[in-house]
């Protein structure tokens, strides 16, 4: 035993060539995140939604900073002000685009009634472009061990692929969806880098299909049997997450996920439960404010609700608007806690990373992308999170 405390003179025989896979840890407390989104929702209410840029940034900062890979936490370096500027610039660009859309639509209507409807497709393509550029923004603000992630590739090339595959998925009633996701992920990951380490995606559409085809068969039933839907959707998302994560590569760094099919179903049910509760509270509030306004208007109740006044009463509309705003913000809190934070933690808990030692000495490369993509995504309502 004594010899062992001295450094051996000959280099030790190499240990097992592949070190054991490394789990990914999450260190954030749930209460902290809840406080963050609660306070954010309050500020969103006061600022009529303008605070969203800073709230979104704080949420990402919390999630990133508490995600530890190989013992080192990631970092999100984006800022709310960037998102605000991106949004304003995107608006300035979108305004003439909307006007042009309106004029072209007018000409189309001139030729044939409702001929302008297919023009909506333009916004679908534009939305896909925005999704790609928004991902680029988020990625270039993601830092691990002092080196940022970055992205090349063209947003329009991606939008073209997404649209063609989207069309195919629509024609095949969703059967082509796994191959669509695989093709788009391949494009995204091929153009993703961590320093000088290039990413790739090895997931195959066929594998995704093999794991999830039975969900496709069940979907028509879920359209009639509502309680089945969360089970199907939850299982689908779990399969998708697992398949997606297991396909991610950076050089020889491999990601593996063991997420079970049922891992996310509970989360969706919790959200549904909260929506029901909040919906009931909102209805009660509406009934109460209607009664209050009716009693103040002096008319008898029946008369008030029978006449048109009921729909036109300004105080009632204002009360309903405020109530609705609070209701929407409360829903946001629920969705952010369960479907953002809890889902993040559950998915991370299933992840193992192997070959991480090749990321131990990666040279920094790549610059920052502007937040314009996020602005477009916000303006077109296609934003991720």
């Amino acid at each position: 035993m004594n010899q062992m405390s001295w450094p051996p003179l000959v280099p030790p025989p190499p240990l097992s060539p592949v070190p054991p896979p490394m789990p990914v840890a999450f260190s954030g407390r749930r209460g902290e995140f809840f406080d963050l989104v609660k306070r954010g929702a309050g500020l969103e209410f006061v600022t009529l939604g303008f605070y969203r840029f800073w709230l979104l940034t704080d949420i990402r900062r919390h999630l990133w900073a508490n995600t530890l890979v190989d013992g080192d936490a990631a970092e999100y370096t984006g800022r709310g002000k960037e998102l605000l500027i991106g949004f304003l610039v995107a608006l300035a660009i979108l305004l003439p685009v909307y006007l042009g859309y309106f004029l072209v639509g007018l000409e189309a209507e001139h030729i044939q009634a409702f001929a302008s409807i297919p023009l909506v497709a333009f916004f679908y393509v534009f939305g896909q472009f925005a999704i790609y550029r928004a991902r680029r923004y988020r990625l270039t603000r993601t830092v691990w061990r002092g080196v940022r992630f970055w992205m090349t590739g063209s947003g329009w090339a991606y939008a073209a692929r997404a649209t063609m595959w989207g069309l195919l998925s629509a024609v095949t009633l969703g059967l082509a969806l796994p191959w669509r996701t695989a093709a788009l992920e391949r494009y995204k990951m091929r153009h993703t880098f961590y320093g000088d380490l290039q990413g790739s995606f090895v997931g195959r559409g066929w594998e995704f299909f093999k794991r999830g085809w039975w969900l496709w068969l069940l979907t028509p039933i879920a359209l009639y049997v509502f309680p089945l839907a969360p089970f199907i959707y939850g299982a689908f998302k779990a399969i998708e997450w697992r398949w997606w994560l297991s396909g991610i590569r950076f050089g020889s760094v491999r990601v593996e996920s063991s997420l079970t099919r049922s891992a996310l179903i509970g989360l969706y049910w919790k959200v549904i439960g909260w929506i029901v509760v909040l919906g009931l509270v909102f209805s009660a509030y509406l009934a109460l404010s209607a009664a209050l306004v009716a009693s103040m208007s002096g008319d008898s109740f029946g008369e008030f609700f029978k006449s048109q006044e009921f729909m036109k009463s300004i105080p009632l509309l204002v009360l309903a608007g405020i109530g609705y705003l609070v209701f929407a913000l409360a829903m946001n809190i629920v969705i952010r806690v369960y479907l953002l934070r809890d889902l993040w933690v559950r998915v991370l808990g299933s992840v193992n990373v192997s070959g991480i030692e090749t990321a131990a000495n990666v040279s920094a490369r790549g610059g920052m992308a502007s937040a314009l993509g996020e602005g477009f995504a916000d303006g077109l309502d296609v934003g991720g999170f």
Partner: protein
Amino acid sequence: MAMDSDIQIPANLSSGGSAAYFDGTSSRRRMVTLRLADRLEIDEGEQTLAAWAYSDVRRADSPAGVLRLSCLTAPALARLEVRDTGLAGELVLHCTSIDDHMIGRRGVAAIVGWSIAAAASIVAVVLFGLPLIADRLTPLVPEAFERRLGEAADSQVKTMFDARVCDNPAGQKAFDKLVTAIRESAGLDTSVQSGVLSSPVPNAFALPGGKVYLFNGLLAKAENADEIAGVLAHELGHLKHRDSMRGLIHNGGTSFLIGLLFGDITGSSALIFGSRTLVTSSHSREAETNADSFAIDVMHRLGRPAKPTGELLLRVTGKEGKGLSIVSTHPLSEDRLARMSRQDPPASGPPLLSAEEWKALKSICSANI
């Protein structure tokens, strides 16, 4: 710069300690010792990797239990990670500007203040600016463009209501006579087009570019020609004031600005719709009142009473209740009737249509040829 290379490992924590360092050019994790001299020195073995001025050191996001630092004058992504709470506390004491870049209470107050100012300005533009802009802009819109707009809306309306134009000759003749009389009294030229559409909806409307449509459903509810004449005069009033063009500008601007405000709050489109309805319906009520005044004038110039039109409206809304009829954005029918009956002189002019013509108009949709 103090370069005491004789001290390799600090004797106690008060002068330094160990940390992890990433230099921002590679992902290599270096175990370093920190020396808290007149600057923060980051040493790896004998070598000093970097020296950060305390006033340039900033806090970066980190998980609980780790102090992560960056430096304004170092590479942007260079990071120093300290796990030792004693050392971390000491560093925080030394780096006086460590939290200067964070959005503190004051920063949040600034965001809230500016947001409220922005919201107030948007609301002011919606309430006061847009009506003004719509008024000023409408006369500048070329007639040809407005006509194009009307043609697009025309084919949509016909498809939506699944309506065809009723034109049985006797009825059409009576309708033309009625429209011509009102049009001349209203001072509009012959570019005005009009027609009766076969739809059970009791409604009438004017499209941009000079098109007036009367639905058969309204005709069925009418009891005499004066009732219909007033409705047509009302719609011609909209044409004369170019209300649909003004409404379009006003509506589009309002949706856009309110959309700016609420952005991405889930389901906010309902909120946008609600607020817009609130704003634009008050605007359209004003336009309706003006069109009513116009109709009253036209009827009086023809020597006919305006009151029957008010009675027709009340008859329609009374039966319709709060359905999706054109009246929802209009003033209350009772008030409209009251306005139309006020100072209504007895009929001094000849009837606009003979009893026979009125009968023909009523059945304009019933039988062809």
